[in-house]
């Protein structure tokens, strides 16, 4: 069975601080995909990044960076110099082998509050 754990339920930081959101996953598949989504207070779900299991290269996009480590089954997300607009619930997700995309498991989410 697949599982995604986001141990941090809620995090509060002050603007301009760096913050890391943890994601640990479990899967028996050798090929899988990892994702991060953002859900701001307005409620929509916004896709942030997709990472394939065979590509362990870390990625940086502006203030966002992702650290994928297969050895520890982790896919952590760091926001550098956080801003109030980063306040949202962040979901990590895992997709394993399947035929129709039905094997897509979400973590419970981490609520990030960035205070001015």
């Amino acid at each position, binding site marked *: 069975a697949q599982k995604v754990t986001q141990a941090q339920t809620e995090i509060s930081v002050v603007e301009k601080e760096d913050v890391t959101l943890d994601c640990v996953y479990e899967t028996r598949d050798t090929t899988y995909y990892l*994702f991060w989504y953002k859900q701001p207070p307005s409620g929509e779900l916004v896709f942030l990044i997709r990472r394939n299991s065979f590509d362990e290269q870390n990625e940086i996009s502006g203030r966002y960076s992702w650290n994928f480590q297969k050895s520890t089954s982790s896919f952590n997300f760091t926001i550098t110099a956080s801003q109030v607009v980063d306040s949202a619930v962040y979901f990590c997700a895992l997709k394993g082998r399947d035929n129709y995309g039905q094997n897509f498991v979400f973590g419970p989410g981490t609520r990030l509050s960035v205070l001015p």
Partner: protein
Amino acid sequence: DAGITQSPRHKVTETGTPVTLRCHQTENHRYMYWYRQDPGHGLRLIHYSYGVKDTDKGEVSDGYSVSRSKTEDFLLTLESATSSQTSVYFCAISVGQGASGELFFGEGSRLTVL
């Protein structure tokens, strides 16, 4: 913008009444999904579709049915709504690499069953 719209966006109904939520996409994607979001549970898959008239159950399908009579529309029906079905419902499509692509979501439909 992945061209997904959900309707209605908000609905209040009474226990025992039927409810249908509609998901409409404009980009001819093959794979469509219905999720529900509840506090503490994240997002859970209700039903999915891999083509016209091709649907299957997800993790929490009891009490729900779906239909997909044309590519662009995926309907979720609660035959007899219960209070436990009060939730926010999201429709999604898989984009990029078929079923291995990332999911793009509609705006969500908030359903309250009294």
